[in-house]
């Protein structure tokens, strides 16, 4: 049953450029009346809970462009990590009453339970247009006065130059699944959906981001997975170093931050996008077949494929802005994508990539000779994905 907010607490959002938005406080009451972070937007129509609990949002305040948030409540089954790491949420309207058989709690109750503050009633479209035109910006919201909020927004360092991975990675390793094969998954901020997909391929040992290559290899993995995660790939030198030592010795598959880390490990560079990709509707073209996948995306930084030269073949390209979305390390059983084939939330179009990782682990040597780009995604013949949690 729902536990709607009883009273309206007027609040404001102030961006570092001085823009002010009026709204109402939702979720937890922020300490000293201020919550601050880098303000980003996400355009998904459903999947707010998965987004809020995605560790890649560490340090960020998430604006939902869809106005009604909370309609179907919240359930533990949709958590993408052990808790939300975002700094806050911005919505146009928080549903007063939720309605869905899967719901275990009102979204507001979930936010309060995990100490996440939010602001509702905001003209989120105005905010999104502003962020689109000026790029990611820091901001602060709460019940404090406008000048205090502005000061907090300006003082907020954002996500550049900070190792956010260290804040979200698991302190100790843990194991999921029971397959014969062992897969080591680096947790830079890994989503549960990824672990679920990997667990269908073998026993998954999730290790902290700082784990060295030798420690990983001592586990004798059939493959190593590089997860998604928050922030700037340039700030996780230790991870880049470890991955550099793994490529060529064991099959590697990276997603999102994992993709950026792999490319930096190969000596490539990454750069910050003007306003990032945050949504569930981005078209990505599989270069070899020309086929389009509708993908879930959440990243601010991007790989510059030119910086890698002929070491890699570009396998996937974003059709909206033609930025890099995937690569294969030429002559190696190693590949990565910038987007989220595990969905959670988002379309399942790219879930075949876990099958590619499976094949790679089965016969790593094949990948040393045959270029990856000639492999088409398998035809999805009426394929309903196996991995669906929490659904009858």
């Amino acid at each position: 049953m729902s536990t709607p907010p009883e009273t309206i607490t007027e609040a404001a959002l102030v961006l570092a450029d001085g823009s002010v938005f009026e709204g109402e406080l939702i979720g937890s009451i922020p300490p000293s009346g201020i919550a601050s972070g880098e303000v980003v937007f996400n355009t998904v129509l459903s999947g707010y809970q998965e987004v809020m609990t995605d560790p890649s949002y560490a340090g960020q305040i998430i604006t939902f462009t869809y106005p009604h948030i909370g309609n179907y409540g919240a359930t533990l089954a949709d958590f993408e990590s052990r808790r939300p790491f975002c700094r806050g949420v911005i919505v146009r309207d928080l549903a007063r009453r939720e309605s869905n058989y899967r719901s275990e709690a009102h979204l507001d109750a979930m936010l309060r339970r995990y100490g996440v503050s939010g602001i509702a009633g905001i003209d989120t479209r105005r905010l999104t247009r502003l962020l689109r035109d000026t790029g990611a910006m820091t901001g602060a919201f709460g019940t404090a006065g406008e000048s205090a909020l502005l000061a907090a927004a300006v003082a907020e360092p954002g996500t550049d130059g900070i190792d956010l991975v260290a804040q979200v990675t698991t302190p100790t390793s843990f194991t999921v699944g029971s397959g014969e094969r062992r897969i080591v998954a680096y947790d830079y901020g890994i989503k549960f959906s990824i672990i679920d997909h990997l667990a269908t391929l073998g026993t998954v040992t999730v290790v902290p981001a700082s784990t060295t290559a030798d420690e990983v290899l001592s586990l004798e993995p059939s493959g190593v997975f590089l997860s998604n995660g928050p922030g700037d790939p340039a700030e996780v030198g230790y991870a880049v170093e470890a991955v550099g030592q793994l490529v060529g010795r064991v099959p590697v598959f990276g997603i999102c931050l994992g993709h950026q880390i792999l490319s930096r490990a190969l000596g490539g560079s990454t750069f910050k996008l003007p306003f990032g990709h945050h949504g569930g509707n981005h078209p990505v073209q599989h270069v070899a077949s020309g086929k389009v996948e509708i993908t879930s995306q959440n990243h601010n930084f991007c790989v510059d494929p030119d910086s890698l030269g002929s070491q890699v073949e570009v396998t996937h390209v974003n059709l909206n802005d033609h930025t890099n979305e995937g690569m294969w390390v030429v002559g190696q059983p190693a590949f990565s994508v910038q987007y989220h084939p595990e969905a959670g939330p988002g379309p399942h179009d790219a879930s075949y990539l876990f099958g590619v990782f499976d094949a790679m682990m089965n016969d790593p040597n094949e990948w040393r000779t045959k270029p990856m780009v000639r492999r088409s995604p398998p035809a999805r013949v009426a394929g309903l994905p196996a991995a669906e949690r929490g659904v009858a």
Partner: protein
Amino acid sequence: MPKRTDIHSILIIGSGPIVIGQACEFDYSGTQACRVLREEGYRVILVNSNPATIMTDPDFADATYIEPLTADVVARIIECEKPDAVLPTMGGQTALNIAMELFARGLVGVPGTPELIGANAEAIATAEDRDKFKQAMIEIGLGVPASGVAHSMDEAVEVIKTIGLPCIIRPAYILGGRGTGIASTMAEFLDLASNGIAASPIAEILIETSIAGWKEFELEIMRDRNDNCVIICSIENFDAMGVHTGDSITVAPAQTLSDVEYQRMRDAAIACIRRVGVETGGSNVQFAVNPATGEQVVIEMNPRVSRSSALASKATGFPIAKIAAKLAVGYTLDEIPNDITKMTPASFEPSIDYVVTKIPRWAFEKLPGTSGVLGTQMQSVGEVMAIGRTFPESLQKALRSLEQGRLGLNCDPAERQFDDMSDDFLMASIRVPTPDRIFQIGELLNRRTRSIEEIHEACRVDPWFLDQMSIIIEERSALWSNHDLGAVSKRQWRRAKRLGFSDGQLAYLWGLEEADVRKAREAAGVIPTYKTVDTCAAEFAAQTPYHYSTYEDENEVRPSTKPKVIILGSGPNRIGQGIEFDYCCVHASFALRDAGFETVMVNCNPETVSTDYDTSDRLYFEPLTKEDVLNVIAAETVASGGVAPKVIVSLGGQTPLKLSGELPVGLIAGTSPRSIDLAEDREKWAVLCQSLQIPQPAGGTAIDLEQALQIVDRVGFPVLVRPSYVLGGRGMQIVHDRNHLARAMAELTGFGTLGREGGLSAERPVLVDRFLEDATEIDVDAVRDRTGEVLIGGVMEHVEEAGIHSGDSACAIPPQTLPGWVVEVIEAYTKSIAAALDVRGLINVQYAALGTTVYVIEANPRASRTVPFVAKATGVPLAKVATRVMLGATLAELREEGLLTEPVGDGHVSVKEAVLPFSRFPEVDPALGPEMRSTGEVMGIGATFGRAFFKAQLAAGTLLPTTGMVFLSLADGDKPAGIVVAQRLRAMGFGIAATAGTATHLERFGIIIDQKVGKVSEGADITAIDLIADRKVSFVINTPQGRGGRTDGEQIRKAANLHRVSSVTTVEAALAAVQGMYEQVEFDRTDQPLEVCSLQEYHRR
């Protein structure tokens, strides 16, 4: 993959007349397809029988055939035009069925014949054949409701033994759910099963376990030939399963699905389109979800663009039909740019940052005898859509867009109708889906005597929607307690407006004038902001100014300096106001854009071409109310740096016309509101006619029975009684005696639907006029410019006599029986009336010719329903010419410019015929009368009247037979003409059956009667109904008696309707039909092929 170069010409099949279940959404899709394919360089051939469509404008195709939509006719066009391909997915069920019939005959889709593009025959069959579809879904592992198929009653009974009751019966190959129903008892089951088998063209029904009460969803999906699939839009129905989607309030995007469930549904939709085999184009897939367990089942799939895809296109800004046409010729989604962002490709899934609500509009008040209960069979005639940032805002905007006297969910005079109803009564009422249910739910929420759980249990509407409605209701209470207008804070104003409250609602709540509320609101600084529909939730910059109002911080209307013209559209389709007015508005937009104006369209009907963002320079998807229109004018004035735009009110029918008095007079383009009022105001009009010395039927105005009786004492019976300021003969009656007059006046003054539309007052009286029996009715459309020159667009002679609503009667250009001098008198009168009213633009005048006198019935200085028909018959773009004239051009200038050309009239006759909705309402007497009930129209063009009439009938679904037995039952007054009819039928070799009275009369003139039948009401052995049911007659001529004694005739007409035996209900139509039959018999005898000819060809002659 680039576009195909192996095909050069493409035949597009349209959807024909507007009928329930198939409305102007197919004009929207077909128009887009024609445009796109021509842009791509293909030769486009179009066939559609509906002259009111924009797609049949000769500019939109290389060859435009306004011909009956039958397989024979289309086959003949294929023979003449030899297209390389046929695109059957733009014309609804009609086009698919024709394509399948041609495929079965080996004329398309097989080697050596035109290729079927968009969807092939196998895909169409898989989606449309309910059993095949079900098996296909089971094969790919998708859930479907338990079901069985039957082709006979024996099979049906077998199936029900395993399925059990309640169950749904669905006939195969049927549009809009005709013949579909839910059976809870065995008696209902047997009834529905036999009707369903009869309704299906292949005598097949699907019997399905009932999942009434489950949540209903729909996904719009597109696929290209590279197997890329994208979901354009998800739609959630407010009404649970059990109400046809076309009759449901629907909301986009889906509101109550978690991402896990939504993605599962998305996967299923993709699997479905792949299995069915729609290789390119759009489809929609419907799902039902058990709210308790989340179980999903597939209900059905349409392998073509549909009403839902039109809605999805307007709801997202993604033009499904346009993209589908490109996919059909070989492009892939990633090769097509997104029109709105220009920067990104069409291979994506739109994200939206607002809520869209669609609400259907019904016409039960025009169909006495109907129950008004909604079910699995679609009954609505139109719909509105509204966009708001939240569901409450979009819901209230949609409700006031309906133009049925409601200002929102409540807070208007109509809410008083519930005052006398108990809570229990209302709880019982909401168990039954009706058009009023949403207001009943609102009333229950307002009373707070029932919980949301209890209300949900009764009506099965999801609690999320109910809670959102409750937020509106609670705001009402909060507003109610705040009576002091000056004390309303900015935050309170904003809160109310953000929940969609109109100024009118607030005025009602506070007992104030709307203007005062507006003034106070504006003083508080609360004015609407306009957001943009951009397909991407603002992720990318949008190039297309497609706006909706809401109350937020930022306004996105861009400044521009070009002179602007706002065109007010016609709102939801309804009987009496439909696609014809959309045609006029769209033509106005095209003409003004060509002339250098910036055009701004305001409308709320998602089915139309006018609400395509491509049609005008700017589109405001807004309700057509005074408040919303004034807001658009204000926003555009600001955008133009303070220069107010001109406003066109006279092309969208009664909807914008009613607003003319509410808008600043100086802004109205064309004829002044004063003249509009002069023509509408009975007293002033009578004075004007007198001064012009043009005869009028005697009459007057009355606001009560006493006044009406005084008029009758003066003019005598029969009289025509009708309310003023309505369109389509709403509430119009021919009254023969005092009792009847009392009844008629009571109905008009009562608190019926008319009462709700404003009631009677000195400003809105009832008109009582002497009715001219047996007069010939004539319609004229003309244009007058500022120099006083008048262009007579067309003079139309009606087939049916005066007294049958002009919208329901057939008419011909040029006039067929009127002497030349009468036509000249009519033209002279028209010019003099247009001058007296100082018309600048269109005027429609109706006349009745009786003997040597021409009476003027009424004049309307605005676009009429017949403007597109006239344009197609004569080749003169009347709406475009009129629009330019309204903005100051003269006819002479337009002639110079080449826009105005000489009419082509000689050498062919054009007949317009009305299409009536009776096959959907077997309980209604299909006799024609003064109240309009047709939903659409068709046009037949031929070398002679007989040929044109025959074709028009064929297009309207009335096959005029050439052999067999004709049944005649005539009213006394019709018997003389009946002799002529019977003699001609005999001469052609028809048999004749007749009722006793008619038979006796005909025998007296030497006509042999093969079969006499007794009266149904007297329990005779063999009645007309038996002959009809046994298909012993091929044609029925039954004219109603003037008064009383209708029971027999009514049953005969209903029987003909039910058993789909062609029939006519006036003797004039019988004479025309006999003429048509005669010429067809001659055609058959000389073995001539059916003649088809394109408009371009006609206009060239």
